[in-house]
């Protein structure tokens, strides 16, 4: 009994962690590369859920939503980057806070205006309903699917960053964008691409979690602080850090309630503070940046 409980909670932690990865990767890459603190990242996540809701109600097809909603969010993210963040490059990064905060507020109002403030949910596609028997315990099929998608996407991205040409350019730009620019690459294009990538991932998380969980305008604010905590713990700008950090926080969220439910939140902040005090650059962050 105890073993089953622990095993299931562990799987839970992994699943929660991996879904957080999708949200956090974009945030950390954007920060690492462009020094942009994107407060609107939670809003992009939220829009993924709402776009998904809209696509499902129009087409009746959940898979269409899974495919299209993240792309739409990516498009929107690209437009935001192109028209409002790009003109601010080279300026004090704090202005990005103001800008993205403004977007977060605006998008919150827009979503409430268009879709209303009441709670909604994207219906799970019939083929993914039900549970799976995993020897020790049973687990909802959809959540396993969620886990699977997150793992596949994370791995694919990892390989892409390590191996592809774009990945190399991306990492180089993160390290020294001026140099990369001097060598002839249009760094602005790279930045836009990274932003779009982050937005697509956040949108994907939105569709997936909008199915597993409730959809309401407050979901943006509820996710952004956790995302920032993970970025800090893992190291700003580090892909590996985002994955490990998300994993740690996922485990914390899974096991915390067993021991001290009121303090799970507090533990997260304490962990965040501890990392910042001991190794400000985070677990995998670049110490030079500290």
């Amino acid at each position: 009994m105890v073993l089953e409980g622990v095993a299931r909670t562990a799987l839970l932690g992994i699943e929660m962690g991996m879904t957080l990865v999708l949200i956090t990767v974009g945030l950390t890459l954007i920060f690492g590369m462009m020094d942009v603190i994107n407060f609107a990242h939670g809003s992009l996540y939220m829009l993924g859920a709402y776009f998904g809701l809209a696509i499902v109600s129009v087409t009746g097809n959940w898979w269409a939503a899974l495919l299209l909603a993240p792309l739409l969010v990516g498009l929107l993210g690209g437009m935001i980057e192109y028209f409002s963040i790009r003109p601010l490059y080279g300026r004090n990064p704090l202005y990005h806070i103001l800008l993205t905060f403004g977007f977060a507020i605006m998008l919150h109002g827009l979503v409430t205006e268009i879709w209303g403030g009441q709670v909604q949910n994207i219906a799970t596609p019939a083929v993914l309903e039900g549970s799976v028997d995993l020897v020790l315990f049973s687990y909802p099929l959809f959540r396993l699917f969620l886990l699977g998608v997150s793992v596949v996407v994370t791995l694919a991205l990892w390989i892409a960053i390590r191996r592809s040409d774009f990945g190399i350019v991306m990492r180089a730009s993160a390290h020294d964008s001026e140099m990369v620019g001097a060598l002839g690459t249009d760094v602005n294009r790279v930045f836009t691409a990274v932003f779009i990538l982050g937005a697509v991932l956040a949108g994907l998380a939105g569709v997936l979690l909008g199915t597993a969980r409730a959809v309401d305008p407050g979901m943006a604010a509820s996710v952004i602080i956790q995302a920032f905590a993970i970025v800090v713990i893992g190291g700003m700008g580090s892909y590996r850090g985002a994955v490990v950090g998300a994993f740690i926080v996922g485990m914390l969220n899974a096991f915390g309630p067993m021991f001290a439910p009121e303090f799970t939140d507090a533990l997260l902040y304490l962990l965040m503070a501890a990392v910042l005090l001991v190794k400000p650059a985070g677990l995998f962050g670049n110490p030079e940046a500290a």
Partner: protein
Amino acid sequence: MSVKDVLGRHFSAHRQTDVLSGRVRLGLVVAGVIAVLFAPFAQMVHPFWMDLVTHMFIFALFALSLDFVFGYAGLLSFGHAAMFGAGGYAAALLIQEVTASALLVLPAAVIVGALVAALIGWLSVSARGIYFAMLTLAFAQLFYTIAFNDIPAMLLGVESVTNGDNGLVGITSLTLFGMDTGSLMSYYYLSLGILAGMLTLVTRLANSPFGRVLQAIRENEDRVAFIGYNVDRYKVVAFTISGGMAGLAGGLWVPVNSTATTSMLHWTTSGELIVMTLLGGMGTLWGPIAGAFLVVFLEDTLSSIGNWEIYLGIVYIVIVIFAPRGLSGLFQTVRANPNPKVLLGKVRSALATYRKKVFV
């Protein structure tokens, strides 16, 4: 490209050597006179305007506290809500349990705010730039969690201290020398007086040798350390002073609204404060005050229009792209170019710059 470098680069460019030039001081005095005369005017026409402006004064004080530590010492804080809330709750508890005398409650709020800031500052001072900011955020959220779950009550074994998500309500107004300050007008003058006093104090501080060292630290910390100053100590002291002011703002806020709630400690309060400071123009002291006025005013007027958040967000976005030095920058531009045609030209060139930056 480290964040610290970027931050440093942008701060060292063009700051005045003396805080609050003569012209600005004159302007502030004029503004002060208008403020004093506004109250009786409002009393006749629409008394509740005084309430709105009182809120502006209190938030201006809050913004001033952030600008002091941020614009002058270069310490970005995402956690100022912690001091604001701590001062507020302290004031609430004092008024409820002990006394409503302003002479005791307000200094207590200052001390509590300062202590919280000293603690957070001392723990965080080893971190730089954005990491310092994140640390303040983490600590502030801890305070929020503590208040929301009423952990002091748990620890002390009493039924309630912060009263969790309901907060403390029914807080009566402050008394000053036995007089109740509960009326709209007396609160107005009390807040105005305190704001004016704090502004003077901060200006003095910023111009003092202490303030100069802070500005030097903002420009280039390492160099200041090499000269022999204990940079960390200066930072903590600056942060403590800032925290005291934030606590004072909280202590004023609570009796005006007769409530002390956990929203005072939430990160969105810190966020709004940063918006006010940036919108007003950081580092100018009077800019953030104007920024606070603007934000409070906007949130008020826009709320009667359908979904006000949409418009508020758009205003922030437009200002940050086209008027990055905020209100103070706008004011200086207008001042320097009183000719409307020249101004129009400036607007056009701003748009052209935008087009160039985006579409290149």
